[in-house]
């Protein structure tokens, strides 16, 4: 162990001797500890909510979509489905058509998105549309297509009168109303024939990898089609979540900057208070470079102890709040029943790295000041 490391350790371990340096050191450590603690708990809270949202997407949304690379209809959906089945094995596969129709009830008529799926057997409206139309299970609605057919009375829009079999929560990210119906019914409304616009797939084992697997499978089979994975299908939402994480990190991370400025002041105060000691150290042969290292080690040591304490406390608090479900949420409003916390080790590592870098940067200035001082100055003004 070098002399400067030995001394830096003694300055830190010397806390129990209750010197002024020890008090100043303790204040800096507590500052960094609180900064890291706040950041770890906040990011665990954010990660908890965001992982709930991501789980919800995975549980309910499509994991990959294959659509034509040109036009709106797939050339040979049966062949495409068999290629995907052969290459991917056990994945859920659904044929889909989509469009916009006017949906009317006795009280109102609103435009809504119509989704026809091969796995849907009855007409289901989402809560948004049900609320707008004022309908519930068993009520009748009329779906009017923009497509027209020629009748003895002239061209009339194609329409279907049907009963609402169920009302469900909207798809993640959906804002307008939507109605889901059997594929055949939607094909009649939107196309007038057996047209398939897309094949949607789900893989509960590896949902986030499905897009890439489908892309590889179609490339191998030489089939040209547009493939969207989970990332592409929910890009705006996922980008918003990522942006939220960055913004919260920066905002709460400002606490670490304040703690680092406090560390800078405190290390500078130690440098001023220990002026004579430093002159003596210089007198007995400690080089300016070693003196600079001593203060860098002192600041980084304070940073290491403070941020480790903060990280350990933050992880403990987050885990405790999550396990005990200590912060309940009103049912029906949120997708979870209590505030979720999820500690991401990589994020804790990043917080520690930022705290240590700030501590090192904060001690750099006083260390430079100390190294530049002539040793006699410290003895002359004692």
């Amino acid at each position, binding site marked *: 162990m070098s002399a400067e490391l030995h001394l830096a350790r003694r300055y830190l371990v*010397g806390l129990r001797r209750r010197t002024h340096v020890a008090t100043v050191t303790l204040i800096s450590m507590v500052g960094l500890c609180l900064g890291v603690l706040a950041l770890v708990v906040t990011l665990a809270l954010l990660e908890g909510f965001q992982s709930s949202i991501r789980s919800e997407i995975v549980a309910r949304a499509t994991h990959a979509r294959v659509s034509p690379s040109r036009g709106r209809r797939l050339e040979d959906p049966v062949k495409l489905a068999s290629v995907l089945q052969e290459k991917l094995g056990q994945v859920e596969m659904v044929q889909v058509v989509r469009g916009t129709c006017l949906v009317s009830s006795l009280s109102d008529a609103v435009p809504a998105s119509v989704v026809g799926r091969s796995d849907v057997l009855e007409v289901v409206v989402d809560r948004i549309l049900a609320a707008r139309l004022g309908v519930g299970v068993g009520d009748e609605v009329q779906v009017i297509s923009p497509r027209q057919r020629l009748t003895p009375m002239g061209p009339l829009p194609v329409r279907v009168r049907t009963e609402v079999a169920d009302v469900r929560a909207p798809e993640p990210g959906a804002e307008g109303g939507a109605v889901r119906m059997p594929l055949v019914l939607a094909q009649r409304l939107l196309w007038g024939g057996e047209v398939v616009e897309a094949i949607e797939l789900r893989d509960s084992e590896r949902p986030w990898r499905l897009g890439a697997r489908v892309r590889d499978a179609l490339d191998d089979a030489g089939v040209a089609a547009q493939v969207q994975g989970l990332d592409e299908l929910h890009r705006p939402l996922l980008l918003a979540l990522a942006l939220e994480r960055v913004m919260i990190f920066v905002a709460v991370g400002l606490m670490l900057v304040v703690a680092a400025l406090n560390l800078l002041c405190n290390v500078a105060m130690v440098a001023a208070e220990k002026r004579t000691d430093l002159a003596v150290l210089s007198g007995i042969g400690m080089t300016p470079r070693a003196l600079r290292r001593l203060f860098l080690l002192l600041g980084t040591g304070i940073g290491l102890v403070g941020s480790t304490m903060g990280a350990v406390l933050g992880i403990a608090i987050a885990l405790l709040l999550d396990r005990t479900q200590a912060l309940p949420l009103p049912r029906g409003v949120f997708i979870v029943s209590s505030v979720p916390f999820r500690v991401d080790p990589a994020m804790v590592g990043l917080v520690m790295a930022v705290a240590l870098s700030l501590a090192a940067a904060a001690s750099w200035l006083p260390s430079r000041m100390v190294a530049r001082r002539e040793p006699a100055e410290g*003895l002359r003004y004692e």
Partner: protein
Amino acid sequence: MSDAQPFVDLRGVSKGFGTGSARVEVLRDLDLEVPSGRMLAVVGPSGVGKSTLLHLVGLLDRPDAGRLELDGREVAILDGEERARLRNRMIGFVFQYHHLLDELDARDNVALPLRIAGESAGRARARAMELLEAVNLSDRAGHFPDQLSGGEQQRVAVARALAVEPRLLLADEPTGNLDRANAEQVFSLVQELHLLAGLTSIIVTHNEEIARMCDDVFRLAPAGDNFEDV
């Protein structure tokens, strides 16, 4: 002064502090030779520049003008790193107020110059124990400075000054802060170790009695009218 080769040689050294009208010339055109193995007392009224002289010889400060040689080597021109290494290898300091580090016990304080020189912790501590034994403080090795008396603190400081077996010992009022009995004890110790280790020593003191016990006395006076008793 003796005809032997000077270990410390100052030629035309000047040093002042401040700038403009507030500037004070403390040392002006000073010449001084200290032969190898001699003990020189530097005496003079307060503010005359005794400590400044010691700081210049001890490479703690730089002269404004003049030449400064230690053991025949020009040292005023060396950079900070080289001067620090030279201080560590060649010079031992004893200050008026011991200046031990509060965070280290007596043994670690004495071992510190050796740790700076790159010695291992074990060897540095073993050597520190030998030195504490030489100053009769081996039983106080684990005590921190605030647990030692003034005399004991100064004896630890003497042990620290001799840790790296320096060739030049510089002491700034080593007994100035002690009562008569402790002052005599500390000075006898310094004298004994000076002879034993064959050191060249410069002692700044106000105490005429101590000055008389040195080999040579250098009287520092304002305006540079210095003279030397032998």
